[in-house]
Structure formats: structure tokens, C-alpha cells
């Protein structure tokens, strides 16, 4: 990113590392907005993560880190701030939620944010307390204030009705509150209040040993457990300079594709449930159960917890396990083809999913949408190809991209990718190198060092920011930006103009995690 220095000659020379594709620029607060605007504009980079850190115990100031991806490079802007900082949202809309979160959690005011209101901490939280400040005690459970619940903007006018839904839903679904402004059957506007399952996970991580942090990362989310574990492990490995054995890299990719496969099959099945299409739902859920049992048999856990280790894997696959894997996948592939044949042949169902819940490419790009939802809206992003990790660098990957941005496109992306996952697993198993799967010991991490780990989870890019503390062996700051983070913000744009009754279908076509977002 030589041209960034040409564009802004006042900037100091950047620092590279810890990964070869990471470059950190020290950017003074008054330059933050123009630099960010230039990166997201002319340079064509995408904001993939923004995190605030209370570094006052180190040198008396807070820091804001803005992380952009420019093709295969990560450009990190490090800005010292005190009580406030210039909002970059007016120039880089994808920053909108990060800045609101920074306001809630660290009490840093993003000056010029167009819609600054609480995001993570609901009504009743004492607004002068900011949990991610170092002087806030984790166990402090303040009494609710008399602050009213957050207000919704709504829509005014004759014939407009408001439909509140949640946080407890009719089915077995994670909690969130949706407020529909409707005119007859049509949705005029949707507002979502999320973060109901906010557990304080990032605060909990602070002070934890790096080894223990892995178990926490595995429990950010059930459905993306392995993606988060590997993203965290990669962040630690980049910090320590650990060289993960090649066999472990291959096996990580195999396990990550198994995670994608069971999710995609289950998500398509669930999508069918959203349209009360029993055939697709029951057949798909039956197949998902077979995949979960395969996970259980060969990796020891249905949701692939306890698979990743810092410096490799906690388990190896022997010849019998590999045979089980390939044999089961063969049957699953055949079965899945038959089920999909039935789903796609059903005209009533296909009528429901086509042109329903359209997310335009412009909105997807502006909000930094990732994963299945991005690829269904014409945005060709996939970290496995763009920033290869594990064993993906050596694989040829087809990234399916559709332009329509509707429920059908998001289903189609999953269908194509599920077969590709099976192919990738076969290829990886065929070329699996021999050797150990875990480093006997992890090299020590430096003190107050930062790194980024990332994985293309079944839902899209998970970005983990990790900073070590004074001894290097413990976590100082951990921020988890799952794929659901940017994508949740986009869901309300895909709903207006559709029927209220189509919301479950639209929501299930995004199939985002609440816990991944809420943390």
C-alpha cells in the first residue's frame, strides 16, 4: 500500500507483521476519516474489523484499530484517542455498528456518527459504565436504571400497524426482537434489536491464559464452533510464530469443510421449514444428523468442539476414520442430490423463494456483508480464496456468485458450496501429508502484541482480534467479529416490500447466529 503514503505524506512509515500480509499505519485522529475514506473509496479496500482497546494502563490512551482488506493484504490503521474520535461511518458505512459498539463498551464518542444510539447494551444499563474499560470490574452487575427500553423509529401514517416479534420466538430459535411496520400484509420497515444473548465474553477473555482462550473461542457459537476455534488459534500462532505441522493444516481444512457441509445442509433444510415445505425439511434434517454423527465418530464431537489446538489439532484421523469419512460422504452426496432434485422440482416452493428478500449488491458492499449473503448478491468474497489459511492456499476453489440477491440465490450458493466442500475434502484426504498434527510446545508470545485470525465460516468471514498482556501469556483484548456481525445489519434492508409471512423464510435464508453476534 505504497500509494497510501503518497496520498498522505504526513503518515509515518508503516510496520509490517506479525503476519507477512499485515501492515500497520499509525494514523493521528484528525487523519482517520480521510485515510479510511481513501482506503474504502479509491483503493477499493473493505473494512473488515474495527476495534477499540483501552491501552491506558500501558501508555495512558485508548486506541482505535481499523482493519481493511485490500485484495490479499490487511491494512491496519492504529489511532490513539482519548474521549472521542472522528466517526468514519459517513464515508465508510460498514463502520456504523463497530462505532456504536465502541461507544457502548469503551465510552469513546464517534463524532459525526449519523445514528448514534446504544447497540450492545440495552435500555436500563447505566450509561456512564463501559464494560471493556480496564477499570470496570467484570463481576460488577449494576442495577438497572429507570431508562426506558430502546425506542424504535417506526413508520407513521394511517393504516400502518406495528408488529412486535420476540425476543422469545415461537420455535426453537435464538432470541432477538423484530419490529415490523406494516401496511396490510406488506412490511414497510423492519428494525431489529439484537444482543439479547450478550454474555460479556470478550470481557471474560481478558486475563485468561492463551490456552484457556481456545475453549472460550469454541463456545462463542455452537454452529460455528470450529471456525471460531481455528480463527483464534491462528491469531495465537501468528503472534508466537508457531509453524503448524502441514498435516494439521490439511486436517483443519477437512474439519472446517465438514462444518460448512453440515451447516449448509441443515440451513437449506431449515429454509424449507420457513416455507412449511416438510419434504425438504425432514429429509435435510435427517441428512444433517448423519453428518453430525460423522463428526462425532471421527472427531469426538457433534459440533466439532475439542478438535483444534493451539499449534495444530487435538486429534488425528487414522486410516479407519478417513475411510469412514469418505464412505459416509459418498452416501451423503448421493442422498443430497436426490433431496435437492425434489426441492428444486417443487414449483410452489421455488415461487416462494424467487425474488423474495432481495439484498442488493450496493447495500451488501456498503455494509461489508460477507459469506453466503454476499456471494448471493454479486459480491465475490471468500477468505479461503482471498486470504488463504490452513491448507486452502494449495486448492483450486470455485466461488459461486449470483446476482439476484434473493432467498433462492442464497440457497443456491449453499447448494453449490455443499458439493464443493465434499470435493475439497476428497482432494485434501487424497493429498494428506503424513507427520505430527500438533506442536509439542507453543513458542512464547510477546507482551502487548496484536494479531488477527480469520476463517471463512459457513456464514462468512470470522475476524478475531487478539492482543496479549504484560507477560505475553494472557489475553489483554479479544474482539470477535463473526460473519453474522456485518450481515445482521443488512437483514432489515432485505425485508421491506415483502410479506410479513415471508420474514421467517428471508431470515432463515441468511441463517445468522445470534450468539456469534451478541457474544
Amino acid at each position, binding site marked *: 500500500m505504497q500509494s497510501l503514503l503518497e496520498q498522505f505524506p504526513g503518515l509515518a512509515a508503516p510496520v509490517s507483521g506479525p503476519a507477512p500480509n499485515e501492515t500497520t499505519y499509525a494514523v493521528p485522529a484528525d487523519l482517520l476519516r480521510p485515510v479510511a475514506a481513501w482506503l474504502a473509496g479509491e483503493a477499493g479496500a473493505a473494512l473488515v474489523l474495527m476495534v477499540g482497546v483501552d491501552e491506558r494502563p500501558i501508555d495512558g490512551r485508548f486506541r482505535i484499530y481499523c482493519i481493511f482488506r485490500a485484495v490479499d493484504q490487511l491494512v491496519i490503521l492504529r489511532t490513539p484517542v482519548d474521549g472521542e474520535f472522528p466517526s468514519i461511518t459517513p464515508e465508510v458505512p460498514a463502520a456504523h455498528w463497530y462505532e456504536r459498539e465502541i461507544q457502548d463498551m469503551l465510552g469513546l464518542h464517534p463524532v459525526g456518527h449519523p445514528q448514534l444510539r446504544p447497540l450492545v447494551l440495552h435500555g436500563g444499563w447505566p450509561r456512564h459504565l463501559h464494560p471493556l474499560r480496564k477499570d470496570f470490574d467484570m463481576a460488577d452487575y449494576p442495577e438497572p436504571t429507570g431508562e426506558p427500553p430502546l425506542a424504535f423509529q417506526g413508520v407513521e401514517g394511517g393504516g400502518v400497524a406495528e408488529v412486535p416479534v420476540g425476543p422469545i420466538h415461537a420455535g426453537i430459535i435464538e432470541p432477538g426482537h423484530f419490529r415490523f411496520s406494516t401496511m396490510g400484509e406488506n412490511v414497510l420497515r423492519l428494525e431489529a434489536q439484537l444482543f439479547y444473548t450478550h454474555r460479556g465474553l470478550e470481557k471474560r477473555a481478558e486475563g485468561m491464559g492463551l490456552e484457556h482462550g481456545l475453549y472460550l473461542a469454541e463456545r462463542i457459537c*455452537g454452529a460455528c464452533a470450529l471456525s471460531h476455534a481455528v480463527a483464534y488459534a491462528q491469531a495465537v500462532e501468528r503472534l508466537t510464530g508457531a509453524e503448524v505441522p502441514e498435516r494439521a493444516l490439511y486436517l483443519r481444512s477437512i474439519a472446517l469443510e465438514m462444518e460448512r457441509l453440515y451447516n449448509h445442509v441443515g440451513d437449506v433444510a431449515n429454509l424449507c421449514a420457513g416455507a412449511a415445505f416438510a419434504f425438504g425439511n*425432514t429429509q435435510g*434434517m435427517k441428512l444433517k444428523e448423519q453428518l453430525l454423527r460423522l463428526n462425532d465418530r471421527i472427531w469426538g464431537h457433534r459440533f466439532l468442539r475439542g478438535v483444534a489446538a493451539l499449534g495444530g489439532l487435538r486429534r488425528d484421523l487414522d486410516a479407519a476414520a478417513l475411510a469412514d469419512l469418505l464412505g459416509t460422504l459418498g452416501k451423503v452426496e448421493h442422498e443430497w442430490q436426490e*433431496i435437492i432434485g425434489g426441492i428444486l422440482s417443487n414449483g410452489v416452493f421455488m415461487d416462494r423463494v424467487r425474488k423474495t428478500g432481495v439484498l442488493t449488491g450496493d447495500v451488501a458492499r456498503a455494509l461489508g456483508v460477507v459469506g453466503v449473503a454476499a456471494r448471493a448478491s454479486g459480491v465475490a468474497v471468500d477468505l479461503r480464496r482471498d486470504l488463504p489459511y490452513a491448507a486452502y492456499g494449495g486448492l483450486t476453489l470455485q466461488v459461486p456468485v449470483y446476482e439476484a440477491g434473493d432467498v433462492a440465490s442464497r440457497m443456491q450458493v449453499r447448494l453449490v458450496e455443499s458439493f464443493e466442500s465434499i470435493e475439497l475434502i476428497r482432494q485434501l484426504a487424497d493429498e494428506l501429508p503424513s507427520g505430527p498434527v500438533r506442536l509439542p510446545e507453543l513458542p512464547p508470545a510477546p507482551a502487548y502484541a496484536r494479531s488477527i485470525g480469520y476463517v471463512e465460516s459457513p456464514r462468512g468471514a470470522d475476524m478475531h482480534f487478539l492482543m496479549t498482556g504484560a507477560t505475553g501469556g494472557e489475553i489483554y483484548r479479544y474482539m470477535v467479529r463473526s460473519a453474522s456481525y456485518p450481515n445482521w445489519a443488512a437483514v432489515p434492508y432485505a425485508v421491506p416490500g415483502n410479506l410479513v409471512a415471508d420474514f421467517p423464510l428471508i431470515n432463515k435464508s441468511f441463517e445468522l447466529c445470534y450468539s456469534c453476534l451478541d457474544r
Partner: protein
Amino acid sequence: MWKIFDKIRRTPLATEPLAVLPPAPAGTRGAPVLLPGGDGLPAAVRACPSGALGAGGGLDLGRCVMCGACAEAAPGAVAQSGRYALAVRDRAALLAAAGPEAVSGEIHAVLGRSLHIRHLDAGSCNACDWELTHLLNPVYDLQRFGVDFVASPRHADMLLVTGGVTRHLAEALHRTFDAAGEPKLVVAVGTCAVSGGLIGRTYAQRGGADTALPVDVYVPGCPPRPEAILQAILLAVGRAPHTAEVAM
């Protein structure tokens, strides 16, 4: 449409008999077991991320996330078992001194009548929630036992709580509990609902489900296997004698 009929016609019955709870596959992680020698126990305590293994060497299964770190760090002190049917009525029974309760009798005989369940996510990571969903898939087919998940708490006989109780869900939890008619049962599903789990108590999470509601049955696990959740439901319904007979 023909493809659908044809596929349905050729699909054999997927539902498993599930007369007794089957053993978990070899290599899966269930409850850890303290070994008599205790060789290297301090290393196991250090390795435990959730505090389930206390400094005094006691084991609280209610806080265990079954990660296996203890057995890996000190194989002379802790062994990893595949035992998963861990539901108990008394939280204290999850301390290693007491053995978890087990249920006997054929499942179908125990759940002979109908039971309506309302799921309550109190702040879970969704793994437990997914296992509840999977209990309804054609393989487990919970509905065949007369058990079903209902939309309204007014229809519910039992609340299955997953996750520790977050600040933001406490009110919804209380209101749902109050809305359910008497008599009602509460089952805490998963280590987070049992004790707050790895997150424990923070500014945003109170701890286990019993910090907010009276809990009748606790079932640890991260997440508990579907069969373990089924066992917890059986235990809560209380028609089962509490002596062992689980195929383990």
C-alpha cells in the same frame, strides 16, 4: 412433484428405536473421572478452563464443559469417560462425590402421556438449542413419545432453559415462566444453564438458570447429547425410578 413422491417412497424409516439410551461413540468426551492415585492433579486443575476442577481437587460436573483439557494435561489424575447421561434433580449431586441419577424402564413407557415443552434461550451459544431442534428430526422423532415443543408458554408443562441467564433476557425469562400454567417443570439444559459455564458471572450474565427460576432437573454437557436431554426430560417427568439402567 414425482421426484418428491419417489424419494419419499424409497426412504426407509429413519427413526431409531431408542428403547434405552445408547452408548456414545468411542472417543467422545463425556464426564471426566477422577482417578484414585491423583498423579499430577495440580496440572489438571491448571488446565481446567471453567473451574470445574477446584483447587482442592474436587470435581463439579455442573461447571464442566467436557473439553477434556484435564485428562490431556494429567492422564494419571483424570480419565475422560464417554458417560453423558448426567441429569440430576439435586444440583449438589453433580459434585463428584455423588453419582448422577439414571433412569430405568423403556422410554416409551415413561413418556406414555403427552408433555408440552417451551424452549427458553436464556443466553446460550446455540449448541444446546440446536440439539433440541435435532430431537425433532426423523432420527430422534421426539414427538412419537407424545412430547412436543410449543409456541406459547401457556401451553407448556415444562420449560427447557439453555444458556446462562443474561442481563438482557432475565425479564423475558421471568415473564415466560409466569405465563406458563401450574404445575410446571424447569430443566436446565447444558453446563451454562446449570452453572453459568465457562462464562460464569459477568456484568452481562447472572449465572445458571437457578439464579432466576426454580430448577427441577440439571443436565450438564457442552452441549448435552440429544439422548442426555431426553434423559433429563424423563427424570423431570418423575415417572421414572431413579436406579440405574442406561446402556453405557
